[in-house]
């Protein structure tokens, strides 16, 4: 009783510990799958049960029983020359390997046994310590050889050509025309290393929508991009379109249509660049700043870390109406990079009496990375005329990044830009300055936070006291949070707060809040993402007009387009009167949606549904947007993509549908480059046809007349199957290639026996069929022996150790109502017979009595019914009896001479004579005859009335015999 409080305390402590342990392990346990949880529970229960008193009591007995039957030895697997160490707490006395050619054992430091493989094989290691002996089975395998292909492999040869072609078709939608777009990129590599490149991006609008549109689209084929070029070790030559990255002071990221040569490393003019053609700032067609450009830049210094180029570029703007002018530019750039941590570059361009300059450095030291850049572009530079810059510009920027720990990254940057219109234009220039600071923190695995603050200031660059000034200050704070939940879930959250203040007027002109939440679930085959976006924004009226100048009256619009900034500043108090009906375009909006992507086989699916509600362009608007697409990979080279979208407008906006079909082809892919539309149409497939048949003649061949087996399952590659029809036929569709066809039946080996392998490998060619057959039979057999029934028992039990009777004809006759041939066989010398391949059914086994040897007879009847089961044998032995007889006389030997004399001896009539169960009565002359006697020793006995008897023993052989004159004398 006293122990109870203590036990209770212990129990409560145990419970507390258990709860604490459960709390600690809960995140792990919660993440377990059901099967893993079941395993853990089973292990826990097993642990508890094994520690129970009952289990502990049973343990010694169980161990003793196991000990008696031998313990299982631990198995050590080694490779040749590989070693394995075994540590023992007790001192090791000896370590003996049974086969010293297979492995060796060595004792080190008295407690460790090192066993080393010497040759492939298996042996036993017995380690004896001061306390016990332990045996190990040591398996030594060969060292894994380096993988070598046994079949000769063709020499590695890269594909000589590569590229892609895509064709996209969009049918008319929304009253517009159809669009056909071709994108083409091709390259061919020659043996000497040169590469020919060609490409195009062509589009064509056509169809009914084209005619119905008020302003027709451009007819014919529009060429967005045309490339033709060569690459080699000596350099790169482009004859049509190419990218031009000359200098941040000028055409950088331009698209040039014309010849363009860049000398490569193998050329004496390494680094030289020559070009001529029409250049535009970007691939965007609506960019107006384009012009003719020709130039040459050659390397003047090339000393490893220090490189310098100098050259001249001629610029001729196309749009003279804008007042911009071209000219000749003398240019030079120097780059210095003594190490990966430090680099610096400087450029200068001189033209039209003005000098443009740029300098930049990047440095990395300890936990810091810093950069700084300063640039001044002359307002009259010819580069300005082709859209490189809006005018003269001065740029100052620097940045800093600090990462002391892996988890925390802090960065800050500042950038200030001042602009100046070209001399020909009187535009009010706009200056800007931006300060950005951010900190990102990775809290734990899969969890990230970041906070950033951006402050931007836009202001007019007043050149005269009469010029109006305008200051717009924007502050934005952004918070991002990303959290991975388990292996499959990911959550992203972002909140952004913006505020615009016009400092000149002292008014807050815009404020916004944007919240974005996204939850993503992914698995091996795809992902699903749900999202929710909320936007609250109050833009200024000035911002509205910048985006929609058409809101202004015609006269005001011209002034606005001439100089938007000046117009807005000048008329900033008049804007509400100028645009009386305009409302701010976006005040609020919310949208919720989900998108998914997944793959199945060669198909990729994607789709999205999004519902939005809010105020857009001064209108309440709600709409539902649904899009879906599927991509089918026909093979390694060809892909077809179909996508469509539909916008369901509820208020203010009508529905709109779009549909696109695209085809992609990759040149030089493994499929051989063919357009394998055959796969899409199923033309790449073949058939595996065949039959499951009863192999009546057991030759394994599907011969004419052999019936089919219906209702059996034939499986292709373990997954697809077909069932045989009434004729035993099956038909499986299979892709071109090698396949395994298997007959799958639970009746195999039970009701059917296969005459050919039930699993066969076939090669299927496209649009062809392969035939194969599975032969089955269900035959049983009947066998036995015609034997000499020595003891005349008359059944099969007496067949053992009896001589056979040869030359007897036996027949197996189908029972009435069962069709089949009558089988007959003459038994051999030993009397054995066997009817093989007997269809299951009822039969009668017959023996032709006429073929029995002389003086042999059948016991009773000459036929026996029997039933043959599938795959089973019937053993029926036929007893036949040899005729053995004894004859003689019973008399009183009156003269005592031992022989019968009718004159002197008295014949005894009516005396009962018997032998081996056969009996008879003597005739008047005392004679008798006993037939059907068994083989062996037979006692012939005569009994008179009154009990007086006489007997004689005779030996009868296995064959027919007749013993005469056997006298029984009284």
């Amino acid at each position, binding site marked *: 009783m006293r122990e109870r409080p203590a036990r209770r305390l212990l129990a409560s402590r145990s419970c507390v510990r258990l709860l604490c342990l459960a709390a600690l392990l809960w995140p792990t346990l919660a993440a377990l799958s059901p099967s893993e949880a079941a395993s853990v529970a089973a292990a826990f229960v097993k642990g508890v049960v094994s520690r129970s008193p009952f289990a502990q009591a049973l343990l010694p007995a169980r161990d003793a029983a196991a000990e008696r*039957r*031998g313990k*299982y030895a631990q198995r050590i697997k080694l490779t040749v020359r590989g070693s394995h160490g075994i540590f023992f707490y007790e001192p090791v006395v000896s370590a003996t390997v049974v086969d010293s050619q297979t492995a060796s054992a060595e004792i080190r430091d008295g407690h460790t046994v090192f066993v080393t493989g010497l040759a492939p094989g298996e042996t036993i290691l017995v380690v004896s310590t001061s306390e016990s002996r332990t045996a190990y089975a040591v398996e030594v395998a060969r060292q894994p050889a380096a993988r070598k292909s046994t079949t000769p492999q063709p020499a590695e040869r890269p594909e000589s050509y590569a590229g892609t072609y895509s064709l996209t078709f969009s049918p008319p939608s929304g009253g517009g025309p159809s669009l056909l777009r071709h994108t083409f990129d091709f390259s061919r590599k020659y043996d000497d290393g040169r590469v020919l490149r060609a490409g195009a991006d062509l589009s064509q609008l056509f169809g009914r929508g084209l005619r119905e549109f008020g302003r027709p689209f451009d007819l014919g084929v529009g060429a967005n991009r045309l490339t033709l070029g060569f690459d080699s070790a000596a350099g790169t030559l482009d004859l049509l379109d190419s990218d031009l990255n000359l200098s941040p002071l000028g055409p950088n990221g331009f698209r040039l249509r014309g010849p363009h040569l860049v000398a490569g490393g193998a050329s004496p003019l390494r680094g030289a660049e020559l070009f001529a053609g029409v250049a535009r700032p970007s691939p965007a067609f609506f960019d107006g700043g384009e012009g003719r450009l020709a130039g040459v830049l050659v390397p003047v210094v090339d000393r490893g870390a220090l490189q310098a180029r100098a050259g001249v570029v001629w610029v001729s703007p196309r749009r003279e109406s804008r007042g911009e002018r071209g000219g000749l530019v003398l240019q030079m750039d120097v780059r210095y990079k003594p190490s990966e941590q430090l680099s610096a570059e400087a450029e200068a361009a001189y033209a039209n009496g003005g000098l443009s300059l740029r300098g930049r450095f990047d440095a990395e030291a300890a936990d810091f990375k810093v950069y700084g850049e300063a640039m001044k572009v002359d307002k009259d530079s010819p580069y300005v005329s082709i859209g490189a810059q809006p005018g003269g510009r001065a740029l100052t920027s620097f940045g800093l990044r600090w990462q002391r720990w892996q988890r925390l990254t802090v960065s800050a940057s500042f950038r200030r830009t001042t602009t100046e219109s070209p001399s020909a234009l009187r535009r009010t220039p706009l200056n800007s300055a931006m300060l950005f600071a951010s900190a990102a923190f990775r809290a734990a695995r899969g969890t990230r936070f970041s906070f950033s603050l951006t402050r931007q200031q836009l202001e007019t660059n007043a050149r005269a006291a009469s010029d109006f000034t305008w200051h717009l200050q924007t502050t934005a704070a952004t918070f991002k949070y990303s959290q991975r939940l388990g292996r499959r879930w990911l959550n992203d959250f972002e909140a952004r707060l913006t505020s615009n203040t016009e400092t000149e007027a002292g008014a807050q002109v815009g404020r916004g809040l944007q919240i974005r939440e996204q939850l993503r679930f992914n698995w091996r085959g795809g992902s699903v993402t749900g999202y929710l976006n909320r936007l609250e924004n109050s833009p200024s009226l000035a911002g509205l007009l910048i985006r929609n100048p058409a809101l202004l009256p015609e006269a005001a619009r011209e002034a606005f387009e001439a100089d938007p900034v000046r117009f807005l500043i000048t008329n900033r108090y008049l804007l509400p009167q100028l645009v009386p009906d305009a409302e701010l375009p976006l005040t609020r909006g919310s949208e919720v949606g989900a998108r998914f992507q997944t793959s199945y086989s060669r198909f990729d699916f994607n789709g999205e549904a999004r519902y939005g509600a809010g105020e857009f362009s001064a209108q309440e608007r709600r709409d539902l947007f649904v899009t879906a697409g599927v991509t089918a990979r026909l093979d390694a080279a060809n892909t077809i993509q179909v996508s469509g979208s539909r916008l369901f407008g509820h208020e203010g906006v009508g529905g709109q549908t779009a549909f696109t079909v695209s085809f992609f082809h990759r040149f030089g892919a493994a499929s051989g480059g063919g357009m394998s539309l055959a796969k899409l149409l199923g033309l790449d497939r073949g058939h595996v046809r065949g039959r499951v048949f009863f192999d009546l003649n057991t030759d394994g061949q599907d011969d004419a007349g052999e019936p089919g087996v219906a209702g059996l399952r034939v499986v292709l590659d373990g997954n697809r199957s077909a069932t045989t029809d009434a004729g035993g036929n099956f038909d499986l569709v299979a892709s071109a290639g090698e396949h395994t066809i298997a007959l799958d039946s639970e009746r195999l080996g039970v009701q059917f026996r296969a005459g050919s392998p039930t699993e066969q490998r076939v090669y299927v060619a496209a649009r062809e069929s392969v035939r194969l057959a599975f032969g089955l039979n269900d035959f049983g057999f009947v066998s036995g022996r015609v034997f000499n029934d020595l003891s005349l028992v008359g059944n099969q039990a007496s067949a053992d150790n009896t001589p056979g009777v040869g030359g007897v004809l036996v027949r197996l006759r189908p029972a009435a109502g069962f069709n089949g041939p009558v089988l007959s066989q003459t038994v051999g010398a030993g009397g054995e017979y066997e009817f093989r391949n007997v269809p299951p059914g009822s039969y009668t086994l017959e023996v032709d009595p006429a073929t029995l040897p002389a003086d042999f007879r059948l016991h009773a009847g000459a036929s026996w019914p029997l039933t043959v089961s599938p795959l089973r044998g019937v053993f029926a032995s036929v007893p036949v009896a040899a005729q053995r007889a004894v004859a003689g006389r019973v008399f009183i030997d009156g003269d005592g001479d031992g022989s019968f004399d009718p004159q002197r001896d008295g014949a005894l009539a009516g005396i009962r004579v018997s032998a081996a169960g056969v009996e008879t009565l003597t005739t008047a002359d005392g004679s008798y005859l006993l037939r059907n006697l068994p083989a062996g020793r037979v006692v012939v006995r005569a009994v008179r009335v009154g009990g007086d008897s006489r007997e004689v023993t005779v030996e009868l052989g296995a064959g027919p015999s007749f013993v005469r004159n056997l006298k029984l004398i009284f």
Partner: protein
Amino acid sequence: MSSKRIFIAVTCALLVALFSGQARAQQTAAVAPPAGPAAASALGIAPISIDAKVKRGSTYTQTYTLSNNTPARLRFRCSVSDYWYDEQNRRVTDRPGTLPRSASTWVQLTPSEVVVEPNSSASVKAVVSVPLSAAGGYYTMPVFEATPDDATAMYTTGSGGTTATASIGFGFRGLIMLTTEDAAEYNVEIMDGGVRPPTASAPLELSLDVRNRSTTHARVRGSFVILDSSGAPAGRGRIQEKRFMPGQRGEYKAEWAGALAAGRYTAVVTLSYDRVGMEPATLVYELPFEARDVSASAANR
């Protein structure tokens, strides 16, 4: 006359093969008379013994090659017989489907009869249909009975109005042992064991009572290490492999001819056997024994 000569040659070849090669047939997979006039003549079957793992619900195919290097055409009659053991661990055979774990009724031999021309060979395919319900080991013995196919080789004599026909044939017996891949259970136990220490006239004899409670046969191979009372090795050896059929219990013996000084020893015996689909298992059994001074006892005698 010529047919009589052929018959006599074939008969001689078969008799020589019967008496000289039958005992080896199970091991060597062929019967080849070693010497004599009939040495050039030989009959063969390959392979003789097959130990295969099979998938349930599928077929296992084995091709037998029947070789006839005699000058006579021979007709091979192909059949199967059951294979098992009796209480005295003697091999017994019986009609198909009558003995435990019989695979005989699953076997289809194609063709069931084949004539092999002189100095040539023929193939017979055995297709075994393994039922889905099979589990463990199954056994059957293909039997190939060769008889002269030439009608003139049948020697007929007339005697006293009766006719006797002499026909001499020879039977080859193979063995197919099948183990299902994923349904065999293994449990080999050492029931008892003993060591008879070496004497002046007899080697050390080590005997184990082994029972195979597996559902399939186990090929047991053994080894032993003799340790003296201090744990130092005094001898070691291997025990010849022996096959135990399912349920079979038998003696597993080894001899070691080395000498031991008088004292206490322990024989650590290991029995290893392969398991289909698993790594081999190794049983360890310890047999303590005491050796007497052999030289002293010999001297006393």
